């Protein structure tokens, strides 16, 4: 029961706090691409890979009081902060979720901006293409974000680093 919810809760427990819905989405997508067992289905949207199923799960976790969502007014837009609650911590004790080295990845990903994670997740979405094709594709689908060559290079290097750590 709710094993997939428990995985999301484990991630929040490990992160302590995640600021931003987009960031939460992209972190889980990137971890899924690193073979962590998140089962949510992602599709490509205007802002990169996005999972409606994950959004619904977070809403369910908030309604069950397992996750606390705080909405902050940033003047013109809202930002959301997510943390596991004490009830969530207690519920999680019923599960034995095995996700080795998760803390290391979460810490690294959580330190990055949501803009950068949007780039990384988009690069990973097209990982069946050659490097040059991926770069060309990102420039087409992310015209508005206007990613510069150095940023894309940094994103590709960051992915290589993640994959190297994943193999160790």
């Amino acid at each position, binding site marked *: *029961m709710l094993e997939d919810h428990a995985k999301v809760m484990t991630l929040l427990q490990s992160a302590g706090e995640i600021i931003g819905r*987009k960031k939460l989405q992209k972190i889980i997508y990137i971890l899924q691409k690193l073979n962590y067992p998140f089962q949510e289905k992602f599709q*490509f*949207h*205007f802002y990169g890979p996005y999972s409606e199923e994950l*959004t619904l799960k977070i809403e369910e976790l908030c309604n069950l009081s397992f996750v606390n969502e705080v909405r902050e007014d940033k003047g013109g837009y809202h930002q959301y902060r997510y943390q596991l609650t004490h009830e969530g911590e207690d519920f999680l004790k019923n599960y034995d979720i095995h996700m080795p080295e998760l803390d290391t990845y979460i810490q690294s990903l959580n330190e990055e901006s949501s803009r950068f994670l949007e780039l990384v997740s988009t690069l990973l979405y*097209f990982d069946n293409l050659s490097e040059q094709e991926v770069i060309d594709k990102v420039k087409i689908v992310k015209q508005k974000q206007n990613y510069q060559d150095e940023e894309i290079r940094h994103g590709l290097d960051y992915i290589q680093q993640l994959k190297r750590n994943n193999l160790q």
Partner: protein
Amino acid sequence: MTYAFDKLDEEKVFKDPVHRYIHVRERLIWELIGTAEFQRLRRIRQLGTTYLTFHGAEHSRFSHSLGVYEITRRIIDVFEDHPDWEDGERLLCLCAALLHDVGHGPFSHSFEKVFNTDHEAYTQAIILGDTEINHVLKKVSADFPEKVADVIGKTYKNKLIISMISSQIDADRMDYLLRDAYYTGVSYGHFDLERIWRVMRPRDDQVVIKYSGMHAVEDYIMSRYQMYWQVYFHPVTRSAEVILRKILHRAKSLYHNGYAFRYPPGLLVPLFKESMTLSEYVRLDESVILYYFQVWQEEEDPILSDLCRRFTNRRLFKYVEFTPSNYQIYADLREAFKEAGLDPDYYLVVDSSSDLPYDFYRPGEEGERLPIHLLMPDNSLKELSRESDVVEAISGKKRTDHKLYYPADFIHDLTTHRSAKERIQSLLQ
């Protein structure tokens, strides 16, 4: 004249209960409809197991796909001559609309959950692979199939085209809401489609709605909300989905454990092995699946035969509302089921609203998804829920639910495990 501009000698029309007529002038569209992969959609229901709740819901993905094509065609008629519309994209847009669901499998959602398949990936594969559809599309140009696949995959350069097929107010949703309401026979789900397409405008890279059309869009959002709770999330339909998933899990598990099927699963073996080729995938439809469910009622495995009897004869699981924070109740129930000789992995199932493949309107906060934008009289854009109290009210706090499904008849008939029976009945109250 190139194939892309080749018109039929006479316009073809399909009678349709939702749009009255669906008009086809382009030879390309006509030939795509005639392909084996598109005709296969006649044998896949649009609403999966919903026909077990609303008996009229037998309509297919074939009729829905034609409907999406027709709505898109009519929207393009409104967009023509507008400076933000490129007429060269018309055919691409129509093909993407027609083919957007071609990769759906039988009882798609349950299949994807059990076998880790992805209908969107199969849609791309059918368009790009060695198929009749690919051969027809290639007559336009060598790279045309890839363009169609990119639009459907939402990675095409012209995002306006994508938003016509796939956004929070798109041809896909507008057709399925009206069509599903018609075939289920419910009285909600209706809105003024013609009014909406008449107030749609292309604006840079998205479709926006003229402010004067806000109330028509409110109706659309309300119908979407009501259809979700009254039809798509119906607890009886979910019971049928639960049983369907459990049949597939059981059959897969038996196959991997070397069980000797009286009626071997043949066409499903590649699914069980999770190594299915494209040609094997397009052979699957709901008639194949229902055939196996029919014959497996006679299997020796008591769980498989029981679940197939339940699905075929509509002896569905009962349900109670469930709060997952009461984990101990769930754990105790599992133990009591085991004691009573019922395998809880198959007969005690929690189903959550997030298990369903439908969504609500979202105002696009933090760039999750592009919201519906209103084109204001001063030419600025405003997100719909900021202008509409009705939409704001239903896009605020989200309702979610969890249900616990179980075979009430088995519990009722328990005679040899009286204490387990009493404990189960007490815990389920």
